């Protein structure tokens, strides 16, 4: 089943955000304030989904946002959307943090990971975010159970595919494949193009 529905959602921030980032790259602090408004919610939400701890999440989100300022000159629109650039930064920061913290504790809440599906934070008031959330939810439902679990554990929880395999007791090769075909199905459902 392929249902590509384009609700303005994410990509609508596209050109604007991109232009703003280009201004930021030239040191424009007002432009940065506008970038902040556009990306802060997604950055904080994503970081929080991986880290869980609210205080630590805020701290990492702040680091990410400052890094957006600092490294804006590196952004290249030809390589992907501005939001992609920012959220990739956020995800990597969050995952690096969670992996370094948990390397020694062997991810004690491993079991808890399975109990909880992503929160899809209800706090958000913005209509745009709500539509985005509904669309993503709908598309996640088109995935097989294993695809959905693999993708969400990897992305929202920051697990490596090896950890996902272990957690779900599924062979490594299967998880690699499910991550790929799960994302491909999501891509098609969401109508994403590069």
């Amino acid at each position, binding site marked *: 089943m392929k249902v590509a529905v384009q609700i303005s959602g994410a990509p609508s921030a596209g050109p604007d955000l991109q232009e703003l980032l280009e201004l930021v790259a030239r*040191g424009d602090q007002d432009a940065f304030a506008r970038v902040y408004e556009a990306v802060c919610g997604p950055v904080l939400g994503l970081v929080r989904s991986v880290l869980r701890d609210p205080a630590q999440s805020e701290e990492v989100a702040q680091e990410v946002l*400052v890094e957006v300022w600092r490294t804006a000159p*590196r952004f290249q629109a030809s390589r*992907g959307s501005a939001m992609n650039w920012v959220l990739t930064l956020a995800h990597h920061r969050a*995952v690096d943090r969670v992996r370094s913290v948990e390397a020694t504790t062997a991810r004690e809440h491993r079991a808890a990971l399975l109990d909880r599906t992503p929160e899809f934070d209800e706090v958000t008031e913005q209509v745009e975010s709500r539509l985005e959330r509904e669309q993503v939810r709908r598309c996640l439902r088109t995935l097989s159970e294993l695809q959905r679990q693999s993708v969400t554990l990897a992305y929202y929880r920051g697990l490596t595919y090896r950890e996902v395999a272990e957690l779900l007791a599924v062979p490594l090769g299967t998880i690699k494949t499910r991550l790929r075909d799960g994302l491909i199905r999501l*891509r098609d459902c969401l109508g994403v193009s590069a």
Partner: protein
Amino acid sequence: MNRVDRRSGAELHTLTGAYALHALPDAERGEFERHLGDCEACAMEVRELSETATRLGLAVSAAPPRELRDRVLREITTVRQESPSHSRRSRSALRPTGPQLAEVRTRRGCGCRCRVRRDRGVAEPGRPGRTAGGAPGTAAERAGGAGPHGPGREDEVRHAEGRGEGHGRGFAEREPGRVRDLGDGAAPSGKVYQLWFDDGGTMRSAGLMNRAATSNTVLLDGPVDGASGIGVTVEPAGGSAQPTSAPLALLTFPTA
């Protein structure tokens, strides 16, 4: 479109999803990024899947506290931006600044092929960086090998590469006697290939290439700083503090 001819190519290709989700352990991530440089189809897929992941991120958007805004906006007034945009046009803009990856191919008849991957933000948009050491026109440049906005960190790469013979020849013509066929890849018994940064004639070690069995690609070890290029020598096992033999290859980073 490149055909993937490495043995592990097909297997690596299935990692596009894991890579886009940042779900690869570091070691595998490095290997996959090198693969991306040779597989345009993979790079395209990674870009799409990464954009897809971005949508997942947008779906969990949260309402940030007001204080966060104040803190961030205050902090940026004290944080210097990485590279002013005008530097994109400066001479030094094309110099690699991120962690560098040099690949020295040693296939018979190809001379020595080196490529340098570098931070993707430093080359001018729309103007591909030229290959290290390659005269214009002799070096095939392929930009965009490294997927999406990757991590947004220093190891994001812009990818400049000199292709096999063209590069080797171009280089040999300009620097006669300095390129040698390295045979079938293995360093002579008891020896290793060592890479060097060329700091204006002074060589600074950039690591050893002694894992030829599985990969001829190594990360240059250390910052590029002011280095004007890289060199390759054969050294006794374990490497040397300074080169003890004539370079098999010297490559100049592009400066214009």
